[in-house]
């Protein structure tokens, strides 16, 4: 039954503040029996804990239920990631549960794409259609023609999908939005692909290079909670960014910078630290490699980081590149050198460009100069949760043959050689026909047709696949291309785990569990996979001995229970107390059995362990030298490997070819040192296009919720529409006034948005928020605003494979 928000309020008077906000009367859909229950029920109130599933940040959620019907949410105050805080999206999670356009059961497309012609089918028919095709492919010896495009699924779901694909015989499981690519610069320097956590709570100075961590980071609420102590801790925040983001607004100092030049500024600060000997000399000499000039085994001389920086990145030169005054560079460099602990963070602004890897390396090198590793107020790495290990192999000969096939989404030596997956490679291979065809594609989460710079190619590639199966619960631009939709539960109806959110400073596992029985005829995507495996049978079926996805989660948590480490989240279980007990060999809980542990875990919402395993300094960096490498052997080895190819020997010519393929303009030793790579901007386009995400939208999901549309640009009074921010000088140059319609034109396309004129952005730079411009995703998202991906050039950082979101330049003009 569809009712209005007003009716919902009448039924459940006094529900959460979040639902009460707003001026519109949106539609809420809930089963008839619930309305009946709400009218006549005894109104018994209960609260349950779960984890928010609307983005990957992993915030603990406390859900209020009346007679078993969810009516309100707030942050779980004892969950350590968010400590009771929630972003607007989380506060509106009930709207997504009650969204009127949720898919209510399996559907089959009967018309053309985007015609919105679907018919309902039974689960049995849907699963039979898919499993028959899967069995057929295995019978044909072509299991590798199945691909699974995931998004941000957690560890246990990843393990389940990988087990299915391994048993089935396909090497084609990919995560579209994996943060693994973000870790590549760190891997070059520190030897392992772990995104660092930043101890901003204990730092006295935090310098952020384009990391809008209060709004766009891996877990904005977690960092907001840490940031909230800045007054009492007397921490000074410096935000370096082209646009004054939410983080910049809250910082003590905002330093505007030209897009694509973050690495140069970091090296400019390194110049001051080195020149004035303000770096941690002991750490650098004992724990780093490549700082000083050196001779290798063959006697060849190599330039070290020190002399490379001193020769190339003096303040006036850096000012030319970055637009940051040399006096500012000098002052900040000295402040960084004399303040302890001082912390340096990289982020989206640094990574999202063609030179992102080298820029992030330059930024992270500052932490090495400051000796920040595993120090209070520095950077550190958290341990993996001690889940039950799962390494059983269920592979018959068909599966083994299939797994020997090359992965269709894994880039080759010419493009993104360091990455496991690229949506660009995936789409191009399908379109070009140079690889084997994909016959069945599963899509779960994510929306690459909306949120990738090669969205047109992705859409065309999907059209070439005979059977696309979406596991989404709400149709979006990508699932519109599906032939079948086998809808997943809403996160409030399902079991899952959210563990070790990137950059959160402790090991943790959040448990999602059903707040309500499924409202519609949906199925957990994990159970859909298990059911398909059973129907396929043989070794594929044997790979799934457990009865349900719930049991998968439970089995994995037995390892956590048996480890005796950490604690179930609860009151009075702070870091210090856990450490106090662990040092003495105690664990904090008392559980007679795993079942008792599990019941308490589910009730409380999660487990965490803030105590990291002790790592000896000489084991901290698993690089070839065993040290932090300013000069990256890993990068050099890979490039040499690529250069050798079939030709035996990495001659200078071969290396030159690889440098060109990877768009690296530096030469000599500089290639393997953190350095600034110029971005190949269009010279005839005058204005830099930058983009950002607001908390209410995240990756565009928020657009499906009316309250998030209302809040989209609340600080500048822009609702349900996209705006373009520009400096007054830029506006004057192009005769644009506040609120006027602006045409933004790139070599790829044009979009229209209203002008927002602000001092909070560099001149000659514009900024457009992501999130709107949907042609699908439900009644509230469709037809509002513009999507900046539509005018972005399809460019990438060739090392990390990340889309270069800040690499497009545009022309702007006042729209008629």
């Amino acid at each position, binding site marked *: 039954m569809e009712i209005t928000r007003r009716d919902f309020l009448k039924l459940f008077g006094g529900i959460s503040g979040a639902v009460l906000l707003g001026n519109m009367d949106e539609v809420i859909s809930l089963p008839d029996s619930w309305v009946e229950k709400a009218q006549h029920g005894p109104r018994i109130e209960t609260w349950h804990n779960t984890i928010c599933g609307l983005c990957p940040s992993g915030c603990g959620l406390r859900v209020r239920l009346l007679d078993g019907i969810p009516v309100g949410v707030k942050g779980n105050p004892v969950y350590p990631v968010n400590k009771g805080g929630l972003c607007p999206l989380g506060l509106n999670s009930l709207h997504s549960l009650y969204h009127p356009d949720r898919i209510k059961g399996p559907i089959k497309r009967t018309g053309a794409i985007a015609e919105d012609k679907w018919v309902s089918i039974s689960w049995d028919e849907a699963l039979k259609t898919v499993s028959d095709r899967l069995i057929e492919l295995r019978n044909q010896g072509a299991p590798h023609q199945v691909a699974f495009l995931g998004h941000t699924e957690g560890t246990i779901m990843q393990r389940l999908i990988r087990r299915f694909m391994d048993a089935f015989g396909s090497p084609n499981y990919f995560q579209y939005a994996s943060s693994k690519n973000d870790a590549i610069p760190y891997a070059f320097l520190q030897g392992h692909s772990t995104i660092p956590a930043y101890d901003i709570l204990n730092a006295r100075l935090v310098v952020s290079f384009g990391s809008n961590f209060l709004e766009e980071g891996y877990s904005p609420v977690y960092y907001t909670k840490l940031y909230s102590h800045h007054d009492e801790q007397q921490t000074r925040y410096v935000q370096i960014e082209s646009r004054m983001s939410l983080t910049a607004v809250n910082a003590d100092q905002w330093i505007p910078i030209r897009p694509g030049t973050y690495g140069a500024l970091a090296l400019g600060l390194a110049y001051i630290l080195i020149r004035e000997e303000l770096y941690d000399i002991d750490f650098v000499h004992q724990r780093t490699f490549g700082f000083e000039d050196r001779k290798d085994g063959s006697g060849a001389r190599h330039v070290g980081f020190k002399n490379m920086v001193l020769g190339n990145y003096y303040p006036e030169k850096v000012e030319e590149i970055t637009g940051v005054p040399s006096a500012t560079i000098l002052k900040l460099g000295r402040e960084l050198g004399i303040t302890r602990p001082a912390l340096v963070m990289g982020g989206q602004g640094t990574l999202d460009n063609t030179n992102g890897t080298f820029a992030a390396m330059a930024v992270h090198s500052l932490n090495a100069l400051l000796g920040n590793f595993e120090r209070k107020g520095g950077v550190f790495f958290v341990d993996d949760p001690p889940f039950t290990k799962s390494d059983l192999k269920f592979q018959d000969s068909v599966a083994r043959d299939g797994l020997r096939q090359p992965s269709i989404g894994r880039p080759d030596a010419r493009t993104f050689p360091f990455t496991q997956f690229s949506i660009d490679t995936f789409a191009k291979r399908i379109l070009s026909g140079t690889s084997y065809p994909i016959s069945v594609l599963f899509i779960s989460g994510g929306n690459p047709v909306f949120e990738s710079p090669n969205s047109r190619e992705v859409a065309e590639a999907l059209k070439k696949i005979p059977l696309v199966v979406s596991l989404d619960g709400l149709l979006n631009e990508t699932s519109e291309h599906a032939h079948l939709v086998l809808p997943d539960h809403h996160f409030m109806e399902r079991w899952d785990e959210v563990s070790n959110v990137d950059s959160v400073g402790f090991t943790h596992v959040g448990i999602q569990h059903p707040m309500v029985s499924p409202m519609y005829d949906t199925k957990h995507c994990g159970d859909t996979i298990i059911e398909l495996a059973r129907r396929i049978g043989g070794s594929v079926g044997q790979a799934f001995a457990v009865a349900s996805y719930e049991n998968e989660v439970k089995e994995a948590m037995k390892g956590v229970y048996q480890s005796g480490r950490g604690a179930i989240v609860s009151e009075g279980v702070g870091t210090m107390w856990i450490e106090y007990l662990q040092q003495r060999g*105690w664990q904090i809980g008392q559980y007679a059995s795993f079942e008792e542990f599990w019941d308490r875990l589910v009730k409380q919402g999660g487990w965490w362990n803030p105590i990291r395993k002790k790592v000896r300094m000489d084991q901290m960096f698993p690089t070839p030298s065993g040290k932090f490498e300013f000069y990256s052997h890993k990068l050099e080895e890979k490039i040499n490997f690529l250069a050798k190819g079939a030709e035996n020997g990495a001659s200078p010519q071969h290396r030159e070819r690889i440098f060109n393929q990877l768009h690296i303009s530096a030469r000599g030793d500089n290639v393997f040192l953190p350095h600034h790579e110029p971005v190949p901007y269009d010279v005839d386009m005058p204005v830099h296009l930058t983009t950002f995400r607001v908390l209410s939208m995240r990756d565009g999901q928020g657009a499906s919720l009316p309250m998030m549309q209302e809040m989209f640009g609340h600080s500048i009074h822009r609702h349900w529409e996209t705006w373009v921010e520009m400096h007054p000088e830029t506006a004057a140059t192009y005769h644009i006034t506040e609120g006027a319609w602006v045409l933004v034109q790139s070599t790829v396309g044009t979009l229209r948005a209203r002008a927002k004129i602000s001092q909070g952005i560099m001149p000659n730079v514009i900024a457009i928020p992501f999130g709107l411009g949907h042609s699908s995703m439900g009644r509230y998202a469709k037809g509002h605003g513009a999507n900046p991906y539509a005018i972005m050039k399809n460019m990438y950082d060739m090392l990390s494979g990340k889309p270069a979101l800040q690499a497009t330049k545009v022309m702007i003009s006042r729209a008629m």
Partner: protein
Amino acid sequence: MTIREIGALLTIFLAGNLQSQDLDLPTDPLDGRIVFEEKKCITCHTVGGYGGTAGPDLSRDQYFGSGLELASIIWNHAPEMNRKFRQLRMDRPTLTEKEMRDLLGFLYYLRYLGEPGSVANGKSLLSSKGCMNCHSVGGQGGTTGPDFRSIQRYSAPLYLVQAMWNHGPAMLDQINKGKMKYPLLTGQNIVDIASYLRQVSTADVEARLSVGNPEKGRTLFEQKHCSTCHVGEGKRKRIEAGLIKIDLKKGVTEVASAMWNHGQAMLDFMQQQSIEWPTFERNEMADVIAYIYFLGFEDKDGSPSRGKEVFREKGCSGCHTPGGKGKGPDLGSAEGIDSPVKMIQLMWNHAGEMEDMVLTQNKRWPLLSTIEMRDLYAFLRRSHTK
């Protein structure tokens, strides 16, 4: 916490008046840590090095004792604490009776948790105690017992004691056969040894223990037949008194070491009596020791007549007059003192007001020793009962 648990500590305080009844015990004495954090005690006080530095470390010896001993300490330095609150611009926290009960139980329990060990000491102890005559580390040492690298990673020293205890008869047999000296353990010995073994062990999983559950410990005390020898006349109070006499109010591993040290004598006696050697699994030894340990939290009885004198001499009677005609309420009324925790809680909550009063009236803060606290409670309880 269940109603039974909430009542647990209260009953412990009342035990002096309930000598013929069973002593109720807490199931999780660490619940008070929540009060410790939520009431911001941790802002000023440290526990084993964790917490603020404005106040003393509450895990130090001087802050260890029964409920009324702790109450005496808290009361006597209340004015000093109040000054700190004002300096730090903190609100002075008030506590409910339950919160006070949990907090005191928690502070008492800190000693039980023990201290971290020294790896270097542990290594040398393995040799000096003769462990290496039978055991080895990485192939170096004896061959009768297992190589320490292959055993579990005993993060909890008590887990190691439990394992030693369980194969005590076999060990004793070997010691006797080899004419070796029975290894006696003192102080932190076992903690240091466990620290070293944890480091050399190659096991993936660390064997930790939950902090003991005194209530379960009591049941186990019976089930494991400890009471066969320790019961005496068969009355619980006697058992408890007996155990307290041998000063078991120490850290858990010290208590465990004491048990280990009389293992030889026990074994001989048990064999004479045909009693089976008790073995412990999972958390059982921690629970039993928690039970024994918690007996020391109970206060000795005070003297009502001496308490009456304290009440008068310390100036309480100036405000708390019969019929409630003074500044303070009549403590003999229905809402008066019916448990030591209640008394401590009321004293704490009105310490701020009292401090103002003694200051403005140019009086001294009335210090109360533990004995005076006991007597005062005995007097107030009697007044209330009347």
